[in-house]
């Protein structure tokens, strides 16, 4: 249909052509096709915490607190919220909101949703953590709800950005399969689901009763094309109008193509190196030996000077420019500037091989040592090539590095059992410094739920104590100061070696425009016809 109208446009006079193009533009604007690189596994918004699933859920459902493309909290199904007492959060709900099946949205739906979170059978990664801090829910009136917590809990609004509200009446006895069959997937979001073919496509239709800005397209087809080259080809062939996860190798070509427009934004996913902090100073780390391959008898990674040397030996700009082809920014901490918890006064890590060699000598390794650097080869953008580059840079300062890249499925289990000395891994943060601190930096502690992804087992009581204070501090300014202090200490102590923060990239066909976002999700409502 589109090529046809184009051909006609050439045949007739220029004025008529302009009119035709305009008409075609409007006709085109009714439908759009999106191709995403990661499969959506379920339409049940509470079944599996997975970014592709969440992206679809955020198209169909709303949260009490939504977020904009910069991940700032904005009113969603709640119009305002505040802590009315140290342990009580009050949310005012939006009036006159309807679910896709016509049911009215009330506080009962919120109560039901929070009760459902821990009770989704067979969930491989549940949302229960977001309802756990809440000890009691009080419905003041149909549009006012109060959450009581055991301790002051400043992160509650942030948690609410992860909880998609479902219709109590529809979802009360619904299973995950009922959601997948679309029947139960009735939200309040800008698009409603028409049909779903598992692992293949989801068809959306505009929900005209949406409380917010009207969705730009009548219908959106959301396809999953996991093969990078095929996804790019589908865009170039005009079969799809938007793709995400644009492969870095195709990027230069696509930028030159006048029919393609790139949308990008620095995200929140840090790629970093984890180091073995578990073995004590006088113990052997699994993959570290002296230059002759004999056990070293000590763990050099417990020495701050060695960690600094390893960090200073890395030319982050080279990795960003050559390996990542400009699709990342060098990093010295978890969060980019402008995000809550970014340490403003932390200088970039200098690239200084000579200084690194001096530090190694001071630490008692004038001739370096041998180490193996592990990493996945199918998880992060160019992951295997990054560890090769780092391996060469480390070898240059005398730390002779062997590199081993493995599939994520085998790698991640071994990393979680502390089988590596040094390893590359990534972390996609929530826009709050407490998130990486609590998960990656804090001392591993099952009862508190801290350090669950602290695979190097870094532990620093000072950081823990600052984090602890911040988690019950309701005053935003004070809380930020505590988090920034904790982050600064951890980064100066080289708890991990930050490498770079990835850029999220989308590409659209001419005539379409996508609003890039800090989060990696591809949301149908962020695609619109291009302004002419």
């Amino acid at each position, binding site marked *: 249909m589109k090529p046809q109208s184009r051909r006609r446009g050439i045949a007739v006079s220029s004025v008529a052509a302009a009119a035709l193009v305009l008409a075609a533009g409007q006709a085109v604007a009714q439908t759009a096709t999106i191709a995403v690189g990661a499969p959506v596994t379920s339409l049940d918004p509470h079944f599996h*915490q997975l970014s592709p699933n969440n992206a679809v859920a955020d198209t169909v459902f709303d949260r009490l607190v939504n977020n904009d493309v910069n991940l700032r909290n904005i009113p969603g199904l709640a119009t305002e919220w505040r802590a009315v007492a140290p342990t009580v959060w009050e949310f005012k709900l939006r009036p006159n909101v309807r679910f896709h099946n016509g049911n009215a949205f009330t506080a009962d739906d919120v109560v039901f949703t929070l009760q459902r979170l821990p009770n989704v059978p*067979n969930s491989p*990664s549940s949302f229960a953590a977001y309802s756990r801090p809440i000890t009691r829910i009080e419905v003041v009136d149909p549009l006012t709800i109060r959450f009581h917590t055991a301790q002051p809990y400043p992160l509650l609004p942030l948690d609410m950005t992860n909880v998609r509200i479902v219709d109590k009446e529809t979802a009360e006895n619904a299973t995950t399969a009922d959601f997948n069959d679309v029947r139960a997937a009735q939200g309040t979001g800008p698009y409603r689901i028409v049909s779903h073919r598992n*692992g*293949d496509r989801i068809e959306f239709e505009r929900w005209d009763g949406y409380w917010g800005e009207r969705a730009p397209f009548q219908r959106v087809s959301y396809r999953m094309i*996991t093969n990078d080259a095929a996804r790019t080809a589908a865009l170039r062939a005009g*079969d799809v109008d938007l793709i995400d996860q644009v492969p870095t190798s195709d990027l230069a070509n696509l930028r030159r193509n006048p029919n393609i427009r790139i949308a990008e934004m620095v995200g929140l996913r840090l790629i970093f190196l984890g180091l073995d902090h578990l073995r004590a100073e006088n113990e052997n780390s699994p993959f570290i030996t002296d230059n002759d391959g004999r056990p070293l008898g000590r763990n050099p990674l417990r020495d701050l000077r060695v960690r600094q040397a390893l960090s200073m030996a890395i030319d982050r700009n080279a990795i960003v420019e050559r390996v990542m082809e400009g699709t990342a920014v060098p990093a010295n901490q978890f969060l980019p500037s402008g995000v809550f918890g970014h340490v403003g006064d932390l200088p970039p890590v200098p690239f200084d091989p000579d200084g690194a060699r001096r530090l190694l000598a001071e630490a008692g390794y004038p001739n370096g040592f041998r180490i193996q650097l592990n990493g996945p080869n199918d998880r992060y953008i160019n992951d295997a090539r990054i560890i090769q580059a780092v391996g060469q840079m480390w070898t240059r300062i005398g730390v002779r590095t062997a590199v081993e890249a493995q599939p994520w499925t085998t790698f*991640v289990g071994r990393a*979680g059992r502390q089988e590596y000395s040094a390893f590359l891994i990534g972390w996609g943060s929530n826009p709050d410094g407490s998130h990486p601190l609590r998960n990656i930096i804090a001392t591993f502690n099952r009862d508190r*739920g801290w350090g669950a992804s602290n695979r190097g087992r870094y532990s620093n009581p000072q950081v823990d104590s600052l984090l602890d204070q911040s988690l019950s501090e309701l005053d935003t300014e004070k809380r930020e100061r505590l988090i920034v202090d904790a982050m600064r200490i951890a980064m100066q102590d080289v708890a991990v070696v930050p490498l770079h923060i990835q850029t999220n990239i989308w590409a659209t066909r001419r005539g379409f425009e996508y609003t890039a976002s800090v989060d990696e999700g591809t949301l149908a409502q962020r695609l619109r016809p291009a302004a002419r």
Partner: protein
Amino acid sequence: MTVYLVRRLLQALLVVFAMSVIVFVGVYAIGDPVEILISPDADQIERERAVQSLGLDLPLWHQYLVFLGNALQGDLGRSFVFNEPALKLILQRMPATLELAFGAMFISIVVGLPLGLYAGLRPNSPVSKTIMAGSILGFSLPTFWVGLMLIMVFAVQLGWLPSTGRGETATFLGVQWSFLTLNGLSHMAMPAINLALFKISLVIRLTRAGVRETMLMDYVKFARAKGLSPARVTFVHVFKNILIPVVTVVGLELGSTIAFSVVTESVFAWPGMGKLIIDSINVLDRPVIVAYLMIIVLMFITINLIVDLTYSLLDPRVRLEGKGA
């Protein structure tokens, strides 16, 4: 014949059982699905809960017995990722793969047999040499590359065919099929050709070799001496005899096309079983992997059986041996 069938079925059961053990242990050894499935920010309590709810806290032998018990009742487990029965997921995807595989098979026979026959009858003509050189390309070019080239030329440059996906489907026997609509056929063309390329070459080479060998046989010489028309000699006497190896190979190839069209399916985003299995391997969705492999084992056993039975139709000697066995 019955004795033969019963024996074959018993053997098949044993193979299925042995495979279930191998597959189960192998998949178990790859890694821990919870590490992959769980959200990175889940805390320790959440992780333990997930391990328990997926039944992964039991020792391996216990997990296997649970699996075996359910499998005997026709339940091959529930997908960790989709929370739906693994068997249902696979059967949902099967029609897409089947029509692609049969499409490819059809193309390879329709194109491969005549070309092979021609190359066998006139081995020295330039056309035959071109056919044979072409078949080397068909063998040696990697599928994913050819697939991408097809997309680049026919979808991106020429815009004749859609690049990916399955297109419109029509319902037949309660199942969605692409080959019944024009749009679906246009979607099917490139992946089917891509999948057929290797098989065309195979059929060409097998046919050519068979024809070359058979043409020298005494009975062919005799038939010609008897004054039979060349067409009759070729299509009745030669053709029938070269079909045995072709049927065997085509049968087995059909099996591997159905089971392992993974590359083509992912390049063309064809929503078949191949794409399901590769996605499942990436997230270690054990029940789906195990169920898939079990189904594939069953399928190969069935195909082998059918191939053996077809033999006996084509070649009376096999029938006799079958009875004696």
